């Protein structure tokens, strides 16, 4: 019985890793090498937050940290800082997850938007304190807004296509533990 749950979890974890890989891959494709494009949303953060607010057991913190750290390395960002921001946001949302089960989606979106805003501002401020060269603030804020705007789409995708639902109140797993 335990094996069933374990494989079930791992199947979703592999799915998450696969999706992250596709996102990173698409970002790395050298299709548009010219500058001055509109900065797209950070889909990985959307995906992580959408999943943790639905099934936190599918996305353990170590996996999130590993994926985001990998993008830190590949996308030439300062190592570790954005990952730390995402982990903080993730932990905050994870601790609120039991309360957000019966919240309407608009409220969930507001909470996620606030968390992403706080993460971005924290990131920018820490970089400024450490005197690291930064892209223009406007671009960073644009990306933040794009990320927040993309969140409902990612939720829709996860819920409709991948069947990721919120845990209903009082649900138990196969072992009878409360989820």
């Amino acid at each position, binding site marked *: 019985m335990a094996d069933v749950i374990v494989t079930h979890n791992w199947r979703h974890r592999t799915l998450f890793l696969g999706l992250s890989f596709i996102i990173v*891959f698409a970002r790395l494709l050298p299709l548009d090498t010219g500058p001055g494009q509109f*900065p797209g949303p950070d889909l990985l953060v959307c995906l992580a937050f959408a999943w943790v607010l639905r099934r936190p057991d599918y996305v353990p913190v170590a996996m999130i940290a590993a994926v985001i750290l990998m993008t830190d390395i590949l996308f030439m960002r300062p190592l570790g800082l954005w990952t730390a921001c995402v982990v903080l946001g993730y932990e905050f949302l994870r601790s609120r997850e039991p309360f957000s089960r019966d919240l309407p989606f608009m409220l969930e979106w507001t909470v996620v938007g606030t968390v992403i805003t706080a993460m971005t501002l924290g990131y920018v401020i820490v970089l400024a304190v450490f005197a690291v060269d930064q892209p223009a603030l406007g671009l960073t804020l644009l990306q933040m807004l794009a990320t927040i705007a993309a969140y409902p789409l990612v939720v829709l995708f996860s819920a409709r296509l991948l069947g990721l639902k919120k845990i209903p109140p009082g649900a138990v797993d196969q072992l009878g533990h409360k989820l």
Partner: protein
Amino acid sequence: MATDRGNSDEYVRPIRRILVIGLLTFLVGLFLLWRIDSPRAERFRAMLVDRFVPSMDWALVPVTKVADMIEGFESYSRIYDQNQELRRELQQMRAWREAALQLEQENAKLLDLNKVRLDPALTYVTGVVLADSGSPFRQSVLLNVGARDGIMDGWATTDGLGLVGRISGVGQTTSRVILLTDPGSRIPVTVQPSGQRGILAGDNSALPPVDFIEDIDRVRPGDRVVSSGDGGVFPAGLLVGQLVTGPDQRLRVRLSADYERLEFLRVLRSQSAERIGEPGGLVVPEFEPEPRKEEDAVAQGEAGDG
């Protein structure tokens, strides 16, 4: 119920919290390490990228090609017009080529007559663009040539039309090219024909501005911008682009390289140029003549007489 936060196991939660705090400490430590010892961290990054990206090579290249083909497919509708246009252009080019060849021969003859020595010919390594920076804030591409092919940090990169950027970060099989449009890119340039020096500073826009031009009045939009070779980093005389006036009335450069289509890049092998370090000393005999006693005496006597 309200205080029950998900995983209510009494043992799991504190351990998890400790692990998360440990993870955060590690990440912040990594950031501090990156900030303190940036070159080492960047080498580590180049090493990891070198391990990771070439393994996606098999997929990156075909997907890019297919996407390019789809884009190219859209232009098939006007392929006939395009063909005619290209033929006309080719005709003109042939005439130009003939002229260029004649001029080259003439030039070579004149140079030979004048005993002019040119820069040693630049040889190059050609690489395929594997991936871009993945971030809208950084402008760089990853090439599939690296230390194995003798690539070194700081070498210039062109796409055949103009300067593209310089190597910054070399792995065993990959190397990263910081494009001229990257906010961190600073290249010394000369504006021809006036010969004014300036610095081309990338700012994440398609038209990077030129700073520190001494005499603004002597340059005008349309002038050619070439690399100047100041600082000994770059070979001199590589075409960068043309001067234009940006929407903000700053002097900017329209880059010659085709930044929308970076597929193959040439990395120019720069021989480290000999540099003239110090001002010349006095012209004196290389070894001092041994002073002889009589001469000394005579010299003193003469000095006394005078």
